[in-house]
């Protein structure tokens, strides 16, 4: 039923969670006019340069994919290598991606929808340590709530009414506010919109201008690109502008949203890249074991071995070796291990 209510919107209940991202949609709109080019220009650059240019200490960072699926590991490793500090992170199904950033000491605040867990693989030692000690600050949300916030940010409105989190402690530890809908009278939760400073994401392919294609589920990458100020896209493959124009319906993210394009095959390792390669399960298990060790030197040594000692991602791939990488293709396509190799 629809009412013609003539009432003041009263806050009936509210959470105490801190809002870590300070950008408002109106500010971001102004900023976009001055700072984002609409020209069709070649946006390729080395990952080192992209991270240096677009990810700063204290930024609010959004990450594409789903925690350990289609995650931008090449950007994550580079952020850790450049010792970027005090990041606030959108932790919606944040798994291997946020764990590495937290192990590297890059994170100050997290909007939590899902953290600490590696789903079936169990809990992370690194994240438990930092969240249980209170060293990293947090605000609670849900995966849906974070997506709604991004939708508001993409739409350019400052808040959004939702029908989740109501009645729970999750709401009480969020910045949400419960009000009555002025049109129907029912209770809804208002959440602040989210416009991250920068998005790092990994996709299947793009052209040099940043027209991006993703195969399979998109998770939140479309919304995150639309809501974020800066967008760094790493791809398995750069394709021609002609191929993009041959099937424009496949372009999930148009070029003007994108600031940097980096071609990096295997760029999601040890994550799962749908239709390309499956998880490197052993790698992640070894990483998790290092993070769970009470002796903090063990994870530091792991970071030395796999991040700090490398100049770039190519050296990382060389250390992994082609045999190991191609085995992940067998896993992805459910083929017999080492089929024909």
């Amino acid at each position, binding site marked *: 039923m629809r009412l013609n209510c003539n009432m003041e919107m009263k806050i009936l209940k509210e959470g105490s969670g801190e809002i870590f991202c300070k950008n408002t949609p109106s500010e971001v709109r102004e900023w976009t006019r001055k700072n984002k080019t609409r020209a069709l220009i070649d946006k390729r650059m080395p990952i080192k340069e992209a991270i240096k240019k677009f990810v700063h200490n204290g930024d609010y960072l959004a990450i594409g994919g789903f925690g350990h699926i289609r995650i931008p590991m090449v950007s994550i490793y580079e952020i850790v290598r450049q010792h970027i500090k005090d990041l606030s992170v959108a932790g919606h199904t944040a798994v291997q991606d946020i764990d590495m950033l937290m192990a590297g000491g890059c994170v100050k605040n997290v909007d939590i929808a899902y953290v600490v867990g590696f789903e079936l693989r169990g809990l992370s030692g690194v994240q438990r340590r930092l969240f249980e000690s209170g060293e990293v600050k947090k605000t609670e949300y849900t995966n849906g709530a974070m*997506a709604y916030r991004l939708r508001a940010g993409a739409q350019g409105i400052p808040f959004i009414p939702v029908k989740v989190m109501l009645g*729970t402690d999750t709401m009480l530890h969020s910045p949400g506010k419960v009000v009555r809908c002025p049109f129907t009278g029912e209770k809804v939760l208002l959440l602040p919109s989210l416009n991250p400073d920068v998005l790092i994401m990994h996709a299947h392919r793009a052209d040099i201008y940043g027209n991006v294609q993703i195969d399979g589920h*998109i998770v939140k990458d479309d919304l995150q690109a639309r809501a974020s100020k800066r967008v760094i896209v790493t791809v398995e493959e750069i394709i021609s502008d002609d191929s993009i124009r041959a099937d424009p319906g496949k372009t999930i993210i148009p070029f003007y949203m994108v600031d940097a394009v980096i071609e990096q095959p295997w760029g999601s390792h040890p994550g799962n890249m749908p239709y390309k390669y499956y998880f490197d399960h052993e790698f992640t298990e070894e990483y998790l074991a290092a993070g769970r060790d009470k002796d903090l030197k063990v994870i530091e040594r792991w970071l030395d071995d796999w991040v700090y000692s490398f100049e770039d991602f190519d050296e990382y791939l060389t250390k992994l070796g082609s045999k190991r990488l191609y085995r992940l293709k067998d896993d992805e396509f459910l083929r017999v291990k080492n089929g024909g190799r």
Partner: protein
Amino acid sequence: MSRNYTLRELMACVAAKQLEDGKAVAVGTGLPLVATMLAQQTHAPNLVIIFEAGGIAPQLPILPISVGDSRTIHKALCTTTLIDIMDTIRRGYVDYAFLGGAQIDSYGNLNSTMIGDDYEKPKVRFPGSGGANDFGSLAWETLIIMDRHSPRRFVKKVDFITTPGYLYGPGAREEEGLSENTGPSRVITDLCLFDFEPESKRMRLIACHPGVTVEDVIKATGFEIIIADNVRTTDPPTEEELRLLHEVIDPLGFVFKK
């Protein structure tokens, strides 16, 4: 008669039977997913399985490690976005949310956020809601699977309400702004099966697993339970169900450790 089985395996089989063919289920990682796969491979081939990362109606070949990995879109009918999945549930298309948690109370409120009484410095920090609160708020029915049934997990008051059950009693969900005719309908444990008494919205014992007594359930539960007039005994797993669990669904032993 089937060969030896564990109560955990039996729990997965009983959980699978709660899903009706031709309905839609939004499902979380681990045991809920095992039960859902078993249902798809036995009595419910037309079960519509929905994953929050964007996979719709896949034919699951093997247990996914994540609710977003490649297996969740294997032979799917549609791949989409997370917000589209939440919209689909909110619009009323999804019959069941299928969830687990670390703690549960008599109203079916679930905690997957933390253990302890200090939010800033919890004893153990768990993942948080993920999509669980969304599913439990928006789906018509919530099915809950709880492993290791004990007073530490079945508690009077959960340390943190991550996902809403019936909150504090009849009418509470509606009072807080959640939709009518929603909420938990079944809790499946490694000892027994509960539903929720319609009047009080509290957990009610309706069946025990073979070899488990009502007394065992009372002892393992940290709150007072309602006991149905006729407490049934659940059916033991069949040979075929056990084969599917170990050879097809979880051959690598992620859930049923080898």
